[in-house]
C-alpha cells in the first residue's frame, strides 16, 4: 500500500515535482523498482518501452506522464506491479539471534543439550540480558521446551557471593530463544564472575548444568547503584537501569530493576520502593519536561518515561523512598 502511495505521489505534477528532493527521488526510485518487479512476460512489451524511456530521459517522469497514450498502461502496470510484489513476498527465514553476539557455547552434561549464550552487549556491571539457544546434542535440532535456572557467582578469593538474576519466564522458547537476565552488582575487577546455567530439557526430561565464565566490565557511564538504606542503615539494595537501552532525543521508556540482598547467595527482587527522578544535563544545568516517575510493574522492575531534549550527558537524580522515608538519593548517568 505504501508503494502505491509512493507511485501516486509521482503522478501529481504539482509543486513537489519541480525540485530534486529526497522524498521525490525516493518515490521515483520506488516506482522504478516496482517496474523491474512488474517485468512479467505478459506486460513485457509495455514495460520495456517505459524502462527505456526512464533511462534515456534521466528519470524524467513528467515527460512520460504527459504522453497521454502511456498513462493508462502506466497506471495499470503500477497497480499490477504492486499486487505482484505483495503476492510474491515470501517468508524468509530470519536468524532469531540476529543482532545478538554469541558469548559462549558448551554442553550441559546430563541434559544432552548444547547451549549457546547470546548477549546484546559486552557484559558490564548492571542489568545484563542473556539469550539461550538450546540444541539436542545428538540430533542438533532446536530444543524449544526447557526449564532454565541461572546462578551467577562472584568469586573474590576470600568470599563468594551471587547477584540478582531473572530466569527465563517461560518453559517455551520465544522465537527459538530463552531470555533471562543477570544484574551484575560489580565488575570483574574484584574477582571472577561465572554463570551457571541449569537446564531441564522438557522434551527428553533430562537435566544438566553448564557453567561459563563471564568478564564483566566497568561501563563508561555507571548503569547501577548499590547502597545501604538510610532508613535502617543495614539493608543493602541494588538498582540498575534497564531502559533506555538505546537512548534517543524524545520520549524514552525508563525502567529500573531493584534487588535487595537477603543473604550473600540470595538477592530477591524488591517491589517496596517508590522511585522519583529528575533528569539534568550537568554541563548545561537544564532538565527536560513531561517525565513520568517509574512505578513498580512486577519482578522488581519499575517503569516510567524519561524525556531527553538533546544528545549528550544526562544525569538522572534519583530519590528512592520506602514509605515517606528516604532510603537513598543518588544519580545515574546516561550518555549518548
Amino acid at each position, binding site marked *: 500500500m505504501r508503494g502505491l502511495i509512493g507511485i501516486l505521489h509521482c503522478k501529481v505534477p504539482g*509543486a513537489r515535482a*519541480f525540485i530534486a528532493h529526497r*522524498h521525490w527521488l525516493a518515490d521515483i526510485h520506488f516506482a522504478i523498482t516496482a517496474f523491474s518487479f512488474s517485468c512479467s512476460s505478459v506486460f513485457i512489451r509495455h514495460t520495456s518501452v517505459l524502462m527505456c524511456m526512464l533511462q534515456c530521459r534521466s528519470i524524467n517522469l513528467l515527460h512520460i506522464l504527459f504522453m497521454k497514450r502511456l498513462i493508462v498502461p502506466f497506471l495499470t502496470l503500477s497497480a499490477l506491479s504492486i499486487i505482484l510484489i505483495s503476492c510474491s513476498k515470501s517468508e524468509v527465514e530470519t536468524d532469531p539471534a540476529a543482532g545478538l553476539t554469541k558469548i559462549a557455547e558448551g554442553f550441559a552434561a546430563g541434559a544432552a543439550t548444547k547451549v549457546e549464550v547470546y548477549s546484546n552487549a559486552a557484559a558490564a556491571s548492571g542489568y545484563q540480558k542473556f539469550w539461550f539457544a538450546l540444541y539436542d546434542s545428538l540430533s542438533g535440532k532446536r530444543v524449544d521446551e526447557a526449564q532454565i535456572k541461572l546462578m551467577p557467582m562472584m568469586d573474590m578469593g576470600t568470599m563468594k557471593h551471587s547477584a540478582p538474576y531473572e530466569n527465563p519466564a517461560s518453559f517455551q522458547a520465544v522465537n527459538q530463544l530463552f531470555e533471562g537476565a543477570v544484574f551484575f552488582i560489580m565488575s570483574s575487577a574484584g574477582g571472577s564472575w561465572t554463570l551457571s546455567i541449569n537446564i531441564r530439557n522438557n522434551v527428553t526430561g533430562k537435566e544438566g548444568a553448564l557453567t561459563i565464565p563471564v568478564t564483566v566490565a566497568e561501563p563508561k557511564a555507571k548503569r547501577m547503584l548499590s547502597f545501604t538504606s538510610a532508613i535502617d542503615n543495614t539493608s543493602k539494595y541494588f538498582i540498575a537501569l534497564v531502559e533506555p537501552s538505546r537512548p534517543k532525543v524524545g520520549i524514552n521508556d525508563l525502567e529500573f530493576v531493584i534487588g535487595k540482598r537477603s543473604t550473600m547467595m540470595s538477592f530477591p527482587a524488591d517491589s517496596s520502593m517508590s522511585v522519583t527522578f529528575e533528569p539534568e544535563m550537568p554541563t548545561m544545568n537544564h532538565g527536560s519536561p513531561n517525565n513520568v516517575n517509574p512505578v513498580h510493574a512486577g519482578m522488581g522492575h519499575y517503569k516510567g518515561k524519561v524525556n531527553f531534549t538533546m544528545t549528550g550527558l544526562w544525569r538522572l537524580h534519583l530519590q528512592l523512598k520506602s514509605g515517606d522515608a528516604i532510603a537513598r538519593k543518588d544519580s545515574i548517568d546516561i550518555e549518548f
Partner: protein
Amino acid sequence: MLAGFCFVFGLSAQDDSVKTVTLSNVTIVGAEKNMSAQLQQFFRANAAATVEEIMSRLPELSLVRRGSYGMEPTIRSLNGGQINLLIDGMRIHGACTDKMDPATIYVEPVNLENIQLTTGGQGTAKGSSIGGTIDMALAAPKYSSEGPWHGSVQTAYQGASNGWHQAATVNYSSKQFAIRGSGTYRTADNYRDGNGNEVMFSQYNKWNASLSANYRLNEHTRLKADVLADDGWNIGYPALPMDVGYAKARIAAISISKSRAGSRWQQMEAKAYANRVEHSMDDTQRPNVPMHMDMPGLSETAGFYANGSYKLNDRQSLTMRIDGASTFLKASMTMYPPGETPMYMLTWPDNRRNQLGTSAVWKWAPDSLLQLNVTARIDGVQSKLSSQEAKDHISVLGGCTDARFDLLSNLSLSGSKRLANGWQVGVSVGVAQRMPTASELYGFYLFNAFDNYDYVGNTALKSETAINAEAFVSWKLKQVKLQFTGFYNHISHYILGRVDPSLSSMTIGSLGVKVYENMPWAQMAGAEFSVQYKPFERILLLSTLRASVAEGSDGLPLPFIPPLKNITSVRYAYGRISAQLEYEASLKQTRINEQAGETTTPGFVLAHARVGYVLPLWKNQISCQAGVENMFNEAYQEHLDWGNVLRPGRNMYATLRCTF
C-alpha cells in the same frame, strides 16, 4: 504620542494648504500605490543604497535590526509570518531560526525592478497574510532598440564601516532574445557609532549574482528564466550571541507570460520555481563563549503560480491566481562541551508545509470617479513533521505529531472615490488569516536574544485572524500631493510567547522558557501621512510621517511598535547636478512591553546631505555621488533595533557609476 502626531500633521497640512495648487491625476488604494513607487524611485537614486535602505523610507515599512545586515521588514508592525515576503511572486523561507536571513537580503538594488507593497487585506491576493505583501520584482532583461549591449558598472565606498560595494549589470538583446546579468560584491568592516566606538561584530561580506533570460515565442508570448545566487559569509550580528558563518541562497524560476491588450485575457503568466537556502551560525569569532556550538539550517521550497487577468467588460476585470508551494525546513544545534559527548538537537525538527491557494480580485469602476475592488482568497495548508526524529522531539513537549490541515479564508472589500478639487477618499475593510510559522508550531528551544528566553513551539496554536480596516484621504494639485492614511487591525488569536515556569531553559544564561500561545486578541491602529511638493521645476520635497499604537488583550502595549517618525527630503536638480538634504526624526518610544524584554528608546534627529554629478562621456555616462549620512554624528538607535546597539555615526560615502 497621538497628540504629538496630530500636532505635526496639523502643522504640515496648514503649511501646505497655504499654497495654491490645482488638480492632477489619481491614486488608487491598493495595488497601485503611486506614492510608494514615487518614494522608491526617489530613494533609489542613491546608487549605493541597499534594498533595506529603500524599504526603510516607505512609511508603511519598518525594519527589525539585529546587525548591519539582514534586517527584517515589517508592514505596520506586523512581521515574520504575518506578512508575505516574496521575490518575484516566489515564496522563499529563511533557513535561520533566528530570522537573520529575511528574503530581502537575496535581492540587490541592481537586480530589483521594484517593490510592490500591498497592505492589509488587499495584500492577500498573493498569499494568506494579515499584514500584507511585499513582493520584490526582479529586474527583467530589456529589449533595446539602441544596440544589443547595455550595462553599468559601479563602485561605492562607505566611510563609517570602511565598506566597499561593487556592482555591475550587463544586458544583451536581439530581436527575440534578451539576457541580463548582474553581480554585486559588498564587504564592510565593523562600523563606528555616533560616540566614535567601534561596534564589534558588525562586519559583513557577500556577493550576489543573477541571470535572467527572456525569449519571445511570438508577438505576445514570452518565456523567461531566472537564476539567482547569493552568498554571504562572516556576517556579524552585534545584537546576537552568534554570527553567521555563511548564508547561501539559490533561486531558480521559469515562467511563461502572455499579454494581449486587445483580447479578453489581457495578461497571463505561469511560473514554476525552486529555491534552497543554507545558513550556518557561528560563534568561533566571539570571546568568552562558554561552549562552542554549530547551528546549521536548511530551507527548500518548490512552488508554482499561474495568474490571469480577464476583462469582463470595459468597467470590470477579474484577476485570478492559483498558487502552491511546498517548503521543507530543518535546523539543528550541536554543542561541544570540552572533553564530553557533543550535544545535538533539532531546533526546527524536520517539517514540511504544503500550501495550495487560489485568489480572485474583481475590479469594478461603475463610473470614471468610483472604483470598487473585491479580493478573495482561500488557502489549504498542510503542516507536518517529516521524520521520526522530528516527531520524537515534539513529543517531548507533549505536542501533537500528526499532520495538521488548515483552511485559511481571506476577503477584502475596498473602494475609492474621486471628488472635486483634487480630493479623493477611499476605504478598505477585510478579514484575513495567517498560519502559525514553523518556529511557532515546532520551534525547539530557540533562543531569543532580545528578551533572553528560549522559545518552544506549540502545535495546538490556532491561526491568527485579523479584521483590517484602512481609509485614506488624498489631495492632489499640480505642485502638491498630500495623502493621509489611517488603519486599524484587530487580530484574534494573536500569537506571542508566554513564560512557562515548568520548563527549564536550554541556553546558558537564558531566563526561562516561553511557549507560543494564542492571546485572545490584540489591536493596532496607526496613520501615515505623506506629502510630495514641487514648488519649482528644480525642487522636489518629499515627506513622510507615520505613527502607530498597539496593545494586547492583557492591556499591555505590544512589543516592536515603532514610535512616530518623520523623514523629509528636499532634492534640487539642475541639469547634471543634483543635491539633496534629508531630515530624519523619531520620537522616543516609551510605550513598551517589558515582558518582551523591551526598554525605552530615546528619540533622535538625523540629517543627511547628498550631491550628484552626471558626466557624459561620448555615448556613455559617468555619474558620481557623494554624501554624508548622520552629519551631526548622532549616537542613536531605532526602537526596533535589538540589543541597544547604536547605529553608525557619521558616514561619508562616494559612488561612481558608469552606464553604457
